[in-house]
């Protein structure tokens, strides 16, 4: 019976199974969950993230102004009971813009992280499992993608995708974020494929792709979860940077990045156009990073950050 069995049945002296003497050994994931939830920073991060998600999706319901509405009597007005976060230079309510922008930033972060992690896991695992020409080809592509200046490529491609909506932007962001994780996963796969359970599956004639998806990738789940979490914040920061230069989310869509870009031009004279979206962005990234660090401590016994 494997260590990760949900329960171990201990035979009693009389030879009967179970009964009152049945002992439960916690499964790996339940013990991981317990370890994770013991981390104060994870709790703090999750709490803040939940609050931000509530604000992003429930907040607009309490807004006094619609997303498309303009208050022509109040251009660049500071925060007031009528406009909680003030107005921008076209009379739009910054509160509703910020909440919708927060929604978009969270979605972009999550989508990019998921796509990146999936691509990295597949490329890394296949390269590490097959080695030889497959590995050479995949690592060549990985190295080439690492050498390519991602910001420059994304900016060059921007005119071609300008009208295509933000989902294409998500795919492009993800296309330049998987490489380092893929290399790590390749290294782990090379060692994992020599484990008994993988060898047993191979000798039983299980196809290679099944071994990769059933045995190898699930055994790296802890690394992948941590990596995906950290990629959320990386993606949000990347989107902000690109949007600042006009290469990110485009009107009529807004994200925290595009709002920061708009507010930055008036940050000195009209700080409310910059402060609220920036503050929320920092809190969002901090919350995600707290969760990522906590997960790393809980899932990675070698983690140095557990001492942080």
């Amino acid at each position, binding site marked *: 019976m494997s260590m990760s069995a949900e329960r171990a049945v201990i035979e009693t002296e009389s030879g009967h199974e179970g009964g009152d003497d049945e002992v439960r050994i916690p499964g790996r994931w339940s013990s991981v969950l317990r370890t994770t939830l013991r981390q104060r920073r994870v709790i703090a991060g999750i709490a803040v993230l939940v609050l931000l998600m509530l604000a992003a999706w429930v907040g607009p319901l309490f807004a006094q102004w619609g997303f498309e509405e303009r208050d022509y009597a109040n251009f660049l007005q500071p925060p007031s009971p009528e406009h909680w976060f003030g107005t921008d230079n076209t009379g739009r309510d910054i509160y509703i813009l910020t909440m919708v922008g927060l929604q978009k930033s969270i979605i972009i972060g999550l989508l990019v992280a998921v796509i990146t992690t999936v691509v990295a896991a597949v490329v890394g695992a296949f390269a590490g499992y097959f080695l030889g020409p497959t590995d050479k080809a995949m690592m060549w592509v990985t190295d080439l993608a690492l*050498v390519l200046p991602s910001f420059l490529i994304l900016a060059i491609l921007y005119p071609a995708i300008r009208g295509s909506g933000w989902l294409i932007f998500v795919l492009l962001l993800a296309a330049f974020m998987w490489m380092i994780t893929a290399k790590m996963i390749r290294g782990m796969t090379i060692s994992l494929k020599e484990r008994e359970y993988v060898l047993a599956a191979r000798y039983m004639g299980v196809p290679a792709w099944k071994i990769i998806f059933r045995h190898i990738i699930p055994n790296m789940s802890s690394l992948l979860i941590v990596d995906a979490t950290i990629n959320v914040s990386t993606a949000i920061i990347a989107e902000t940077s690109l949007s600042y*230069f006009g290469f990110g989310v485009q009107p009529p869509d807004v994200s925290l990045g595009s709002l920061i870009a708009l507010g930055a031009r008036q*940050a000195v004279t009209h700080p409310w156009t910059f402060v609220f979206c920036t503050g929320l962005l920092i809190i969002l990234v901090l919350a995600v990073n707290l969760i990522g660090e906590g997960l790393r401590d809980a899932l990675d016994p070698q983690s140095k950050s557990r001492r942080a």
Partner: protein
Amino acid sequence: MNYVVLIFLATTFAYLLAASTLSPRANYAEMQPRPSEEQIDARLDELNLNDKTPLAERYAHWITDVATGDFGKGVTGSSINEEMGRRVGVSLRLIFFGTIIGATSGVLIGAYGAVRQYRLFDRTSTGAAFFVLSVPAVVIAISLQVIAVAINEATGVQIFQYAGEYTTGLDAGFWGHLGNRIQHAILPTLALAIGQFAAFSRYQRNMMLDVIGSDFVRTAMAKGLTRRKALFKHALRTALIPTVTYFTFVFGIMLAGTTFTEKIYGWKGMGSWVIDSIVTNDVNAVAAVSCFMAVCVMAASFFSDILYAWLDPRVRVS
């Protein structure tokens, strides 16, 4: 050899992508009076940017020139090589001080934080580093600008300058010019240094914590060395090995891309050239920047590996 091939492929990819996506012809549409189609074609032919010429032909022409070390001319007709030389100098000036200040302060604070683990200093510095790492570079740069404006207004003196590398047309002699350049350099240098401090302090703290518990440090203390001597003479020296190689890597990467800081503070370095070349549809400049960035990444990776092997005898032996 592998590095050279990767650089070649990266540059080729960037050129082909830029040549097929950007439109130098569009630059002439806004001109008053608008040049004739023949004039535009002649000018674009001269610069090897004519979209009527097949892409393969333009690429062949471009790669032949690059092989001789000539990246061609920009959309304005100026030499890309000269422009690159100028801009690399600007970026180097900015990065050198920013990285040195950031890395040095980060290493010192990180190492001391590890020695004072879980004490107030450690918690504060770790928290500060964690916070800074959660703030985009763009936000750090803009926030510093806002703070500088507030300080300038409060004091009534232009202590901080935040547009350009120096004030053009300033007649103030050598010391006046130097002072003016320093005034302009404070904010962008600080913006870079803050980011570097955060990364290096966390990195150095982890490295130091790894080493503090090592046998050789315990042995040093058992042989009668004071804790301070054991930590600084043995632990810190060993913990600095990966940090020095990390510094080499970071420096190379930064040379290729302090885009946000340069653009926000109006410094005409390599980073801001990335944006400028795309906005002006300058295909040759985009390709040159890509090549430079690829070389920087590869050189950074190569030299950090070499340095690590040189500094760490365990790697040398293996």
